[in-house]
C-alpha cells in the first residue's frame, strides 16, 4: 500500500468494500522508475460525457510501470516509445492505446455496463438485463464450463435462487426433479416448461418399464452441457405468462451455442473420472446376525408367554448348509468404483454472411452399482445464413443416441436392490458351490444376481431440428417464423432369467418401443422503436404445436433359454400386449407491449391465449395476462448522492399462468378398449366427460429489487413472491355405485410464497481474483383448500407416509409419535395398550407412543403430523479464485429445514422376515429392565408394532451443506502454447460431492425416491449418490 491520495469517493468505495467483504483493496501499482530511452506521456482520461475519470490505472504493457489518474483525470508516465498503455478502471471498459495514438493526450473510456447490458434470453426474444421488469435468473456457459457436469439439470442445482433441484437418485442418466418456486400442483406435474432455442420440447419421455423404481430418465439427456450457451429460468408470471398454459411451473429457456464471424475455433474437451459411494451403512456379520435373530425368537416366546421355545428356522441356525453358510458384506459386493469418460469437440466460426457451430460429444459413464452404465452420443449443427441483407435463415439440428443399462434400485419390490443389500442376511451364500449365483432364497432375491444377470436396457434416439427465417422489414419491424420437429424413438428391453425366480424354469421378458413426435410452428412480429427518450416494443404472434405418441410392446414368459432374451424366444406371450397411440395439440396467440422512458420507467404487458385439445369444450381457450413495471430510481436526481450505487431498480409484476398437464382426452370422457371377454373385443366406460375441465391457474405477484454497487463489484438481486394456484386438477372420488372411481375436476388451492436473495461480488479483481456468488431462497408452501368430499377425518392420505391437509404444506408426514423406550415395565404407569382397549400392555423395551386421543390404547387415531418434506431454505455459494494461470472454483450447496422419512431405516431396524439390521440396533437394543436406550427390544414378528408403525423415529432432519464441487484448473501460458499453435490449453482436476455435512443417517440427504410431488421426501432406498474425482483437459485451436 503505497498509494494514499484517494479522494472521498474512492475512499467511500474502498471503505464499503472493506466493510462488506472484510477485504482491503490492494493497489500494487508503482508510478516510479524511468530510464533515459523513455518518453513522457501525459493526458486526461474522461468518460463519454467528457467528465474526467480519476483512479484509472495506466499500465505500460510489458514494463513494470503504472500510474493512476488524479481527480482531474490527469496522468503522466514515462515509457519506451513503442509501448502500449492500458487504461483500466472499474466500471469502464479497458482501453489499450499505443504511445503514438496518445498524441492528442485525450483518452475517452467507455462505461462498462457489460453486466447490465448483457442480453438475457426471454420468451420470444432477448432483452438487456437492465431492462428486465420480471424475475429471470440466468446461467451462462462460463459457469457451466467450470463444473464437471454431465447433464443440464444438475448444472442448475444450487446456482439459481428460487429453483430447487431434487435429485431423485444417483443413477447415471436418471431424471432430476425441478421445482421453480415450490410445488404448485398436486396431480398435474411440477416440471417447468423447457424451451430449447425457442422451441418448447417434449419432456414426458420417461421410461415405460418401471416395475419397482418410480423414476424415469432425464428428459434433457439429449443436450450435451458443452453445447449450452445459456440457461434462463423465468420465475415470475410477468416473464413466463407469454408461455401461457404451460408456464405455471416456471419456464426454463436453454440456448445452444452459435458461431461468430471469424476463423474457425476448434475446442476439444475431454475428461476422465472415477466415482465411489460416499458412505456405507452398518450391517451385522453372520455371527452377530444369528445371535440377534435368536434373541428375537426368545423375546417372542417371552412376549407370547410360551413355555416351549419356538423352533428356530434352519435358515438361521443351519450353518452347514451351503446356502446359509456365507458371511457376505453385500454392500462391498455391489458397490464398486465407477469410471467415466467424456469427450467433446466443437468447431465454430463464420464468414460475413454465415455462422456455424458444429459439435459432437461422447459420454461413457458407469454407475457405482454393478452393471449400471450410461452412454450418450450427441451431435449438433447450428448454422445461420444471411440470405439477403434483410433475410436470415438458419437451422439447428441435433441428434442424440443414448443407451442406459438400468438397475432397479429403489423401492421395496422384490427386484429392488438397495434395501436388499442392507437387509439381506449375511449368511445367505452369494453363489452355489458350483459358482453359479444363488438366485432366490426364502422370499429374497440375490441382488448381485439381479444386477449381473438381469437386463434392463433403455435405448433412445432423438432428433431435434429447427428451421427458421427472420425478415427485417425495417430497422424496427421484424418477422420470424420457425418450424421444428422433435422426434424420439425409445426402446426398452427387460429380461429376468430363471436364476432369479423362485419358480423352476420361469423367466420373463418385456419389450417396449415408443415414438414421441412433436412439431411446432411459431410465427411472430417484433417491433422496437425509439422516439427520443421513449422506447416502445411489441410482439404479436401465433404458434401451434402438436404431440403424438405411439407405444408398442409385448411381454413374454417361459423362454426356452436364458440365453435368448428377445421375445421370439418366449414360450408364451403374456397379458400386456400394448399398442396405443395418443396425442394432443395447442394453438396459441400471444402478444407483448413494452414501453420505457429513458430506461428509468419501464413497463411491460403480455397476453397469451392458449387453445388446447385437452380442455373441455366449454373452456377451449385460456387467457393468461401479465403486467410488470420497473423503476430505475438510481437515475432519479435525488439519487445522485449515492454514488456508490450504480444501478438500482425496483420491479413489480403480476400475472397469470396455467398448467395444462391434464390427460389428453380426459375432458371428452373415455371408453377404454381392451376390456375384452376372452377373444371377444370389449369396450367399457372409463371416465365421465367433463366439458368444463380446464387448466390450473396460478396467479403470481412479484416484487423485486436489483442493486449494483461499486461499478459492478457487488450485485444484489432480491425477489419476493406470492403464488396462488387455484382450480387444481384433482381426481375427485365418486361413490363406487356410479361405476367410476373418480372424476377429474378443478378444485382446491395451493399457495407458495417466498423470498429470494442473490449476491454476486468481485472481491478481488487484480492479478489475484476472487469472486463470490451466493443465493438463498425461502419458500413456504401451504394447501389452502381441498374438496370437502375427498377428505376422510379432515385429510387425504397419500401412500403410507403422507397426508394432504388444509393449512399444511404438500409433503406432510403423518404417523405415530415415538417418545422413547420404556426402561421398566412399570414405566408404563397408565397401562397404555396396543391397538384396542383389551390389547396387550406395552412393557419395558417397547416404544413409548404418544396417545393423542388419550383413550388408553394406540390405534390409528393416534397418528399425527410428524414432519414435512419442504425445506425452509435452499441455496448455494460459489467462490472462484484465480491467480495468474491458476484458478480454483469451490461450490457449496445447502438445504435446510426439510425432513426425510427414512424408510430404509425402518428396514434396517427391524428383523421382519430375517432382515439384517444396523449395528446400532444390535448393540443398543433394549435387553433387560432398566436399560435406557433408543432402540426397542428385538421381537420376532414385531407383535407390538414397535417397528412397523409409520413413526417419527424414522423422520430425520434432511438439512445439509455439501461441498458439491471443487475444481482446480491451470491454463498454460499463451506464449508457451502458441508455439504449438494452440489458443488455449487448460488442465483441471475436479471433485464432486466431496463432503456432506448432515445429521441424516442414510446414504445421502439429497434423496427423493418417490416421484410424485405428493409423496416428496421419502428415502426408499434410492440409487446412492457418489463422490467423483475427475481429470480433464480443454484444448482450443
Amino acid at each position, binding site marked *: 500500500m503505497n498509494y494514499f491520495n484517494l479522494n472521498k469517493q474512492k475512499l467511500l468505495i474502498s471503505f464499503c468494500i472493506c466493510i462488506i467483504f472484510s477485504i482491503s483493496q490492494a493497489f500494487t501499482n508503482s508510478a516510479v522508475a524511468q530510464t533515459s530511452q523513455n518518453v513522457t506521456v501525459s493526458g486526461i482520461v474522461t468518460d463519454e460525457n467528457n467528465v474526467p475519470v480519476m483512479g484509472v490505472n495506466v499500465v505500460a504493457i510489458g514494463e513494470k510501470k503504472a500510474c493512476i489518474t488524479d481527480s482531474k483525470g490527469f496522468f503522466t508516465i514515462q515509457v519506451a516509445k513503442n509501448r502500449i498503455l492500458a487504461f483500466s478502471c472499474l466500471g469502464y471498459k479497458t482501453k489499450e492505446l499505443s504511445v503514438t495514438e496518445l498524441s492528442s493526450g485525450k483518452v475517452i473510456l467507455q462505461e462498462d455496463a457489460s453486466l447490465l447490458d448483457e442480453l438475457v434470453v426471454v420468451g420470444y426474444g432477448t432483452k438487456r438485463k437492465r431492462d428486465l421488469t420480471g424475475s429471470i435468473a440466468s446461467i451462462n456457459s462460463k459457469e457451466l464450463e467450470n463444473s464437471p457436469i454431465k447433464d443440464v439439470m444438475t448444472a442448475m442445482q444450487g446456482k439459481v435462487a428460487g429453483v430447487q433441484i431434487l435429485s431423485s437418485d444417483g443413477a447415471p442418466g436418471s431424471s432430476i426433479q425441478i421445482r421453480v418456486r415450490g410445488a404448485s400442483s398436486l396431480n398435474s406435474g411440477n416440471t417447468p416448461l423447457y424451451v430449447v432455442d425457442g422451441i418448447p420440447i417434449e419432456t414426458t419421455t420417461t421410461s415405460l418399464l418401471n416395475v419397482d423404481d418410480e423414476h424415469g430418465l432425464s428428459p434433457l439427456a439429449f443436450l450435451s452441457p458443452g453445447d449450452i450457451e445459456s440457461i434462463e429460468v423465468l420465475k415470475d408470471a410477468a416473464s413466463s405468462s407469454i408461455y401461457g398454459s404451460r408456464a405455471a411451473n416456471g419456464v426454463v429457456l436453454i440456448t445452444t451455442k452459435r458461431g461468430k464471424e471469424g476463423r474457425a475455433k476448434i475446442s476439444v474437451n475431454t475428461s476422465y473420472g472415477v466415482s465411489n459411494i460416499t458412505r456405507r451403512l452398518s450391517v451385522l456379520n453372520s455371527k452377530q446376525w444369528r445371535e440377534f435373530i435368536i434373541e428375537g425368537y426368545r423375546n417372542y416366546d417371552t412376549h407370547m408367554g410360551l413355555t416351549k421355545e419356538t423352533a428356530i428356522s434352519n435358515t438361521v441356525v443351519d450353518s452347514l448348509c451351503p446356502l446359509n453358510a456365507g458371511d457376505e458384506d453385500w454392500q462391498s459386493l455391489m458397490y464398486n468404483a465407477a469410471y467415466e469418460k467424456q469427450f467433446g469437440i466443437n468447431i465454430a466460426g463464420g464468414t460475413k454472411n454465415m455462422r456455424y457451430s458444429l459439435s459432437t460429444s461422447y459420454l461413457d459413464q458407469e454407475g457405482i452399482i454393478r452393471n449400471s452404465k450410461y452412454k450418450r452420443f450427441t451431435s449438433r449443427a447450428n448454422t445461420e445464413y444471411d440470405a439477403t*441483407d*434483410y*433475410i436470415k435463415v438458419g437451422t439447428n439440428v441435433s441428434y442424440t443416441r443414448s443407451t442406459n443399462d438400468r438397475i432397479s434400485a429403489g423401492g421395496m419390490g422384490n427386484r429392488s436392490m438397495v434395501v436388499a443389500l442392507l437387509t439381506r442376511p449375511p449368511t445367505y451364500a452369494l453363489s452355489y458351490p458350483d459358482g453359479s449365483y444363488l438366485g432366490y432364497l426364502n422370499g429374497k432375491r440375490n441382488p448381485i444376481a439381479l444386477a449381473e444377470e438381469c437386463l434392463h436396457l433403455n435405448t433412445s434416439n432423438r432428433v431435434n431440428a429447427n428451421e427458421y427465417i427472420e*425478415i427485417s*422489414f*425495417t430497422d424496427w419491424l421484424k*418477422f420470424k417464423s420457425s418450424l421444428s420437429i422433435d422426434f424420439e424413438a425409445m426402446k426398452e428391453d427387460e429380461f429376468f432369467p430363471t436364476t432369479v425366480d423362485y*419358480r*423352476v*424354469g*420361469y423367466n420373463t421378458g418385456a419389450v417396449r418401443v415408443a415414438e414421441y413426435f412433436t412439431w411446432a*410452428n411459431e*410465427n411472430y412480429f417484433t417491433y422496437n422503436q425509439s422516439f427520443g427518450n421513449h422506447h416502445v416494443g411489441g410482439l404479436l404472434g*401465433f404458434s*401451434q404445436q*402438436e404431440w403424438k405418441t405411439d407405444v408398442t410392446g409385448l411381454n413374454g414368459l*417361459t423362454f426356452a433359454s436364458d440365453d435368448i432374451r428377445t421375445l421370439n424366444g418366449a414360450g408364451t406371450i403374456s*397379458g400386456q400386449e400394448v*399398442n*396405443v*397411440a*395418443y*396425442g394432443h*395439440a395447442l*394453438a396459441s396467440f400471444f402478444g407483448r407491449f413494452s414501453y420505457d422512458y429513458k430506461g428509468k420507467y419501464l413497463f411491460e404487458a403480455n397476453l397469451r391465449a392458449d*387453445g388446447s*385439445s385437452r380442455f373441455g369444450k366449454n373452456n*377451449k381457450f385460456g387467457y393468461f395476462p401479465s403486467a410488470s413495471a420497473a423503476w430505475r430510481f438510481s437515475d432519479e436526481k435525488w439519487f445522485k448522492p449515492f454514488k456508490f450505487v450504480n444501478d438500482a431498480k425496483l420491479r413489480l409484476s403480476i400475472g397469470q399462468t396455467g398448467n395444462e398437464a391434464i390427460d*389428453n*382426452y380426459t375432458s*371428452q*370422457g*373415455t*371408453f*377404454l*378398449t381392451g*376390456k*375384452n*371377454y*376372452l*377373444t*371377444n373385443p*370389449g*369396450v*367399457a*366406460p*372409463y371416465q*365421465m*366427460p367433463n366439458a*368444463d375441465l380446464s387448466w390450473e391457474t396460478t396467479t403470481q405477484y412479484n416484487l423485486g429489487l436489483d442493486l449494483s454497487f461499486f461499478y459492478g463489484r457487488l450485485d444484489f438481486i432480491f425477489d419476493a413472491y406470492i403464488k396462488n394456484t387455484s382450480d387444481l386438477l384433482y381426481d375427485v*372420488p*365418486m*361413490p*363406487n*355405485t*356410479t*361405476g367410476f*372411481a373418480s*372424476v377429474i375436476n378443478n378444485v382446491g388451492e395451493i399457495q407458495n410464497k417466498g423470498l429470494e436473495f442473490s449476491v454476486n461480488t468481485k472481491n478481488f479483481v487484480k492479478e489475484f481474483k476472487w469472486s463470490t456468488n451466493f443465493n438463498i431462497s425461502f419458500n413456504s408452501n401451504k394447501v389452502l383448500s381441498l374438496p370437502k368430499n375427498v377428505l*376422510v377425518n379432515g385429510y387425504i392420505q397419500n401412500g403410507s407416509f403422507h397426508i394432504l391437509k388444509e393449512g399444511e404444506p404438500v409433503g406432510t408426514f403423518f404417523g405415530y409419535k415415538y417418545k422413547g423406550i420404556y426402561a421398566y415395565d412399570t414405566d408404563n404407569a397408565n397401562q397404555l395398550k396396543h391397538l384396542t382397549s383389551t390389547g396387550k400392555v406395552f412393557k419395558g423395551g417397547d416404544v413409548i407412543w404418544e396417545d393423542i386421543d388419550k383413550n388408553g390404547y394406540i390405534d390409528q387415531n393416534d397418528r399425527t403430523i410428524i414432519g414435512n418434506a419442504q425445506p425452509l431454505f435452499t441455496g448455494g455459494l460459489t467462490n472462484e479464485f484465480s491467480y495468474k494461470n491458476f484458478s480454483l472454483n469451490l461450490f457449496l450447496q445447502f438445504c435446510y429445514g426439510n425432513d426425510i422419512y427414512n424408510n430404509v431405516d425402518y428396514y434396517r431396524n427391524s428383523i421382519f422376515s430375517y432382515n439384517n439390521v444396523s449395528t446400532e440396533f444390535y448393540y443398543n437394543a433394549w435387553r433387560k429392565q432398566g436399560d435406557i436406550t433408543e432402540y426397542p427390544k428385538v421381537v420376532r414378528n414385531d407383535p407390538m408394532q414397535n417397528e412397523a408403525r409409520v413413526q417419527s423415529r424414522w423422520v430425520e432432519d434432511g438439512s445439509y451443506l455439501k461441498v458439491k464441487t471443487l475444481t482446480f484448473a491451470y491454463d498454460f501460458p499463451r506464449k508457451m502454447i502458441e508455439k504449438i499453435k494452440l489458443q488455449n490449453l487448460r488442465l483441471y482436476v475436479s471433485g464432486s460431492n466431496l463432503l456432506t455435512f448432515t445429521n441424516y443417517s442414510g446414504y445421502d440427504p439429497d434423496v427423493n425416491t418417490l416421484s410424485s410431488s405428493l409423496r416428496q421426501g421419502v428415502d426408499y432406498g434410492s440409487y446412492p449418490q457418489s463422490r467423483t474425482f475427475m481429470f480433464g483437459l480443454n484444448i482450443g485451436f
Partner: protein
Amino acid sequence: MKKINYNIFILGLALLSLSSCVNSLLDKKPISSFSAESFYKNQDQAKAGVYGIYNSLQSTMHTNFSFWGEGRADNVKTKHAGEPTFLLNNTLTASISSADWTNLYTTISRANYAIKNIPGVFSEGDATGNQLVGQAKAIRALSYFYLVRIWGDVPLILEPYTQAGQDIFVSRTNSELVLDQVEADLKFAVVNCVEKFNSTNDRIMFNKGSANALLVQVYMWRKKYTEAIAAADLVISNPLYSLAVDMVAWGKMFSDSYSNESIFEVGYNETQTNGLRVLYAIGSDSHYTPSLNFMASFEAGDLRRAYIYDVTQADPKAIWKYLGKGVSDQIATTSKQNIILIRLADIMMLKAEALNKMGGTTNVTNALKLLEPIRKRAGITPNLLTEAQAISMYGSVENAILHERSIELCYEGHRWFDLVRTGKAISTMGPINGLSNAKNLIWPISTTTIDKNPNITQNEFYR
C-alpha cells in the same frame, strides 16, 4: 430504408393465416380409445359394449365368488391370515376386500350404458339388438342378485352416469324391490336372448337357458317354489344341457370348462386369469383347504373325493377341483379355468329342493329321483334314496339334498348361500365360529363406500 420485396410480407401474412385451422388442430379425438361422444354409435360397438360387461364380471368373480360363496361356510379351512381368516372366524370388518362392492357396481354401470344405448343403434324390435340388451340385463340381474344376498338392501341404479349433475349420493333400496327388478330383467332376457349361440359361447354368455337357470336360483332365494320348478323344467328339458356322463367327464367339467353340464360359467384364459390358483392350490399358502367336517361328510365310496382334493395327504394342501387332479405348485400353470356359476346338477337339485318344499309323497319321491343320476355318477349306493333312507341318514329330505349339494357343488360358491337360504347358517356355523345373529348374515359395507357417500350407513350389526 432497405429495399423490401413485399412478397415476403405476404408470406408472413400467409403464415399467420395458418391460425385459421386452429379448430381442426384442436379437435383431437382419442386414437386408442373412444370418447364419450364417439361410442355406442354402431352395431359392432354395441357388441363390444356387451363384451365389456362380461369383462367386468371376470374381475368381479375373480376371487370373490369363493370369498362370498364359500368363505363363511363350513366346507373350507384356512391357514391364511387376513381375508380368509376374517371370513371363517366371522370377524368381518368394513375394510376386508369382499365387503367392497365396487366391481359389482362397475358391472352394473357398464350394463346400464349398454341397456340405454344399444336400442339406439338398432332399428326398433331388432332381434340382435334385443338379445344384446337381454344379455346386459341378465348380467345386471346376476350382479344385483349377488348384491342383495351379500349386503341386503342396496342402491338400485338402472341409468348410466354420463355427466356431472346426476345424483351420485344414492340411498339404499329395499332388497325385495331390487329382487323384483332382478326378476324383471331376467324375464326380459328369457324372452329376448338367443336360444343358443351354437358355440362355446353358450356356456359363457347369457342365452335363454342360462337366463332361466339364473331365474331358478333367484326364485329359490325368494322361496317362490312353483315358479322355480317351472323355470327349472325349462332348463332341464333344454337340449343344450346334459349331465357329465362319468367321473372323468365330471373332473374335466372344471379343469377343461365348456362342458355340456355347464349352464353359465365366467370365461377365463391364459391371459385373463382368475384367483382359483391362489384360492385353492398354491402349496402351503393356498387360501383354502378342505375342512375336516367336509372330508368326513362323504358317503362311503364317493368317487368325487379324489377329484375334489389332494387325497394323497392326510392334511391336504390343495383343492384339486378346477385346477385338476394332481395339480402341483411346482408347475407354473396359469389360473385359467372358467368359474362355473350355474350348472345342470345345481338346477336339478334346486328343483328337488323346491319339490320337497311343496311337499306330498309324489313331490318328495320326484325330488329324490332328481338326485339319483348325480349319486349314481359319483358311485354312491344306493343311487336312489328313499325318503326313509334320506331321513335316517340326514334327518330330513331337505338335509339330504343340501348334503348332496354340499359335496357335488363344493367350492363352486354355493355353500354359504345355501345355508342362508335354507335358514341353516346359524345352526351350522354357530358351533364353528360363534355365528349367532341373523343380522350378521349379511356383510358389512366397505369403508370405501361409506366414506364416499354420506347417504349410505353401515349395516346394523357392524356399526
